[in-house]
């Protein structure tokens, strides 16, 4: 079992090195990649079934050598970051890196010899869920990259072709993610944590132009702030309680480890782009699509909430936990409202990600069995649907030369299959029978019991969520007869395969959620709370009925309306009687004007500049209170 874990951490590393050093254009490169991805999917599934009825397992590993190696690597990373920052004439990262490095090195030299770590690696149900997400979705995204990157470079000839480096970073990222979710040793966790920061920095800056450099450094700064606080938390944790293990952290006296826990949660907030750190994620959209997909769905932001969920039991029933809940709630509500005013597809997706993660953070803050149950489901459902959506938008961007939602008129006529896939993704994000709504449903119940105020935030936030998804959905499924060329055949098979896998997964996780809930989540909750929420079986039944009903009705209905129903007469749209054709009307000066239809954005109500600072201000206040009460 332990070998499987180590394999999962080292195998992507190995692949990434292969990707870096095997020459491009070498035959079999893609075959190796495909096989590697298959392996990466298979191992977590094997882990899932191998440990189906087992509790958590902890593994001893001779850590001395590894810790030293990590320390060396950390210094190298720091040096590399400093080099890059100085070259780009940005000095804040330098300061942060130095502070962090000095803290860690000092800690290591003063206390390094006295750290006793019993179990360095561990694995429980939560880790397995994360492993499944990272393994399956992460590798699917890499698969997509095979088809996407050539097109990307074809599209942007000015970008320096560093595909090998890109693939290296992607797999390195996956490796680091596996490291994070399997580490019990907090020092190790911190090391992997910093690796993801480095990878995300390099990946966001892949284009190497001004915009992407800005975004990359913003991401770096914010994650480094999180990292510095993380480092302080580690030092404080060791000094106050003498432990360096995640599982032992939960057993300590709550008062002594509260501050480190808050520090870790803070690092998690930065990584999962909650307010006030949300801007790095929205800036990250300048990166190639696979990067955005990876950051948003399976890695990076999920690492943040993973850590928060791990440490949240420490904060149970404290003011700090309430503050955490509120930060999540504010992020959820405010970003859902900001998303209404955005027309850049990637930005809408980014804000929706922050919004959903906000909900997860809020659940973590509430920290009851039902809340954690729904947080885990949210993680799963969000990862699948969001990666699907990002990949769709990535394809559309090149087919239509725009990532603006308003240019996606009549998408269903230009890219019909892709639109169908995208509809699955969007429905997965907010519509009734799909996953997200199931989790929101449970979240609501959890909130009412714990904190009615959060239920209210959820009510408002859900309403705002409906707005931006529905109008986007309406945009892409509107139909106008004639003139539109189908441009779909140019989508590569690599991309189709990925979309197919993810679309299937979106539906499958909904259908399989009772299984996931019963065999994976409930055991985890039993360990944590000694009880698991009882989900009304009738409700599940009803959701299944809707789900299956839709799965049957949709194709049948579409078939009926497309081929069977002939009893109708086609007329033009109503244009006040001024029709020239179906869609053009005789306007002023006898000009033939085609109608133009765009969505509402309601900037006055939901404008980014208006709400963003509200969110930042409120969340900063909450963070100060959180640290204040923890320090006292």
């Amino acid at each position: 079992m332990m070998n499987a874990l180590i394999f999962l951490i080292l195998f992507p590393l190995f692949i990434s090195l292969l990707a870096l050093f095997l020459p491009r254009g070498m035959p079999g490169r893609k075959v190796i990649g495909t096989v590697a991805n298959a392996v990466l999917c298979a191992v977590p599934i094997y882990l899932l079934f191998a440990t189906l009825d087992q509790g958590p397992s902890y593994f001893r590993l001779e850590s001395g050598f590894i810790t030293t190696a990590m320390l060396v690597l950390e210094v190298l990373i720091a040096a590399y970051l400093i080099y890059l920052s100085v070259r780009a004439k940005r000095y804040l990262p330098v300061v942060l890196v130095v502070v962090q490095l000095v803290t860690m090195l000092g800690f290591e030299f003063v206390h390094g010899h006295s750290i006793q770590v019993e179990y360095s690696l561990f694995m429980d149900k939560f880790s397995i869920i994360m492993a499944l997400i990272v393994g399956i979705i992460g590798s699917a995204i890499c698969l997509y990259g095979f088809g996407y990157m050539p097109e990307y470079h074809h599209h942007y000839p000015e970008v320096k072709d560093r595909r090998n480096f890109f693939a290296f970073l992607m797999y390195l990222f996956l490796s680091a993610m596996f490291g994070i979710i399997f580490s019990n040793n907090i020092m190790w966790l911190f090391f992997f944590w910093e690796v993801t920061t480095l990878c995300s920095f390099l990946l966001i800056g892949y284009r190497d132009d001004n915009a992407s450099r800005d975004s990359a450094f913003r991401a770096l700064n914010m994650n480094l702030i999180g990292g510095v606080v993380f480092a302080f938390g580690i030092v404080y944790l060791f000094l106050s309680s003498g432990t360096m293990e995640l599982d032992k952290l939960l057993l300590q006296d709550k008062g002594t480890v509260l501050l480190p826990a808050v520090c870790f949660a803070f690092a998690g907030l930065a990584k999962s782009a909650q307010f006030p750190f949300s801007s790095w994620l929205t800036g990250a959209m300048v990166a190639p699509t696979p990067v955005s997909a990876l950051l948003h769905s399976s890695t990076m932001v999920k690492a943040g909430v993973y850590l928060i969920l791990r440490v949240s039991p420490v904060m149970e029933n404290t003011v700090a936990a309430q503050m955490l809940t509120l930060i999540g709630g504010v992020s959820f509500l405010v970003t859902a409202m900001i998303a209404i005013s955005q027309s850049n597809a990637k930005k809408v997706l980014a804000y929706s990600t922050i919004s959903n993660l906000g909900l997860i953070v809020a659940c973590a803050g509430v920290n009851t069995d039902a809340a954690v149950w729904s947080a885990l489901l949210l993680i799963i459902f969000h990862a699948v649907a969001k990666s699907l959506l990002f990949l769709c938008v990535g394809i559309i961007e090149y087919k239509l030369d725009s990532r603006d939602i308003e240019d996606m008129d009549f998408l269903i006529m230009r890219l019909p299959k892709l639109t169908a896939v995208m509809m699955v993704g969007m429905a997965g994000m907010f519509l009734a029978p799909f996953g997200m709504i199931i989790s929101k449903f449970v979240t609501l119940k959890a909130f009412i019991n714990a904190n009615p105020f959060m239920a209210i935030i959820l009510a408002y936030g859900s309403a705002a969520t409906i707005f931006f998804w529905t109008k986007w959905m309406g945009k892409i499924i509107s139909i106008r007869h004639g003139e539109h060329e189908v441009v779909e055949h140019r989508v590569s098979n690599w991309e189709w395969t990925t979309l197919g896998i993810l679309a299937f997964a979106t539906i499958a996780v909904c259908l399989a959620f009772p299984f996931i809930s019963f065999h994976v989540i409930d055991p985890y909750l039993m360990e944590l709370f000694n009880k698991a929420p009882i989900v009304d079986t009738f409700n599940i039944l009803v959701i299944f009925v809707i789900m299956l009903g839709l799965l049957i009705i949709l194709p049948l209905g579409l078939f009926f309306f497309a081929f069977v129903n002939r009893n109708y007469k086609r007329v033009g749209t109503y244009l006040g009687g001024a029709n020239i054709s179906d869609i053009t009307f005789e306007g002023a000066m006898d000009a033939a004007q085609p109608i133009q239809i765009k969505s509402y954005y309601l900037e006055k109500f939901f404008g980014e500049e208006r709400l963003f600072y509200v969110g930042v201000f409120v969340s900063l206040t909450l963070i100060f209170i959180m640290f204040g009460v923890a320090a006292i």
Partner: protein
Amino acid sequence: MAHRNLIPFGPQHPVLPEPIHFDLVTEDEKIVDAIPSISYVHRGLESLVEKRDFIDYVHVADRICGLCSFMHSMGYCQAVEEIMGVEVPERALYLRTIWAELSRLHSHIFWLGVAADAFGFESLFMQALRLREPVLDIFEETTGGRVILGASKVGGVRRDIDADSLAGIVKRLAKLRPELEELSTVFITDYSVKHRLCGVGYISKEDAYILGCVGPMARASGLDMDMRVIGYSAYKYLDVQPMVETAGDCYARCLVRIREMLHSIDLVREAIGKIPDGPVEVKVKGFPNGEYMSRIEQPRGEVIHYAKGNGSRFLQRFRVRVPTFSNIPAMIRILKGSEIADVPNIILTLDPCISCTER
């Protein structure tokens, strides 16, 4: 921001009783641009003077517009009478004034109703149109139709109204007045009506002047312009007060019309009190030779009837400059920057009469 809709508003549109078309360019619901397009009801009846006897043409002039039909025939008759130097009997002038004021009254009540409908207040629409019926009954009794057609003629009016009927008119209007006042209270005080009217479609006094607004549109912006004070017809004997508001928005235009409506009732009563006995028409001999511009205050504002005769049976040229036409530039100005929901209000606070405009 580039998210612009292009919406065809009209020619057939439920809030427009008459066909006019706008290309509305909108962002969200905000109107960025509005380009009007007209001539859906252009008939070309000005050129009909070349085919119709100048006496017969009154019937065409009547049908320029169905709401203020009387005003048009009266303006036409005034112009021709001035050219020919006909002295119209006093009683005829009074009768014309009474009908003209009643026309204004029914037109304003109708406007109130349609405006209420435009902002979605259906019951108010129904009540307003219910109160309009008594005025139409007076029309029917005195002229024979629900729309005054053929009452005016060159040289006077076609029918007289006897003393009993005149007294009856006063009595009925006295009964109508409190009901109208009650109706007006809703317009003046109701929260939702104010929400839809206050601050909507604002036009300043300067702009109203520069863009050539007339009628209630101008008066609501503080321009004291009322053609009745120049004293055509019997207005010289009556106490005419122009109703002026200064706010310049839809609400002010609504107030102006409400006050004018009540003022019309007063004027009718005053005219009926002062009406002298005597003939109602004089014989007209010869053909018009010369030109004249007659200026009249319609419910919608100042209308100009220009007639030019060359001494033959047929007028050489006849031209009508109607109030709606002069108000259209202002309408376009205030449409920009308003909301889609305001479009019906703005269009209707002009009280547009497209059939006048396009003739």
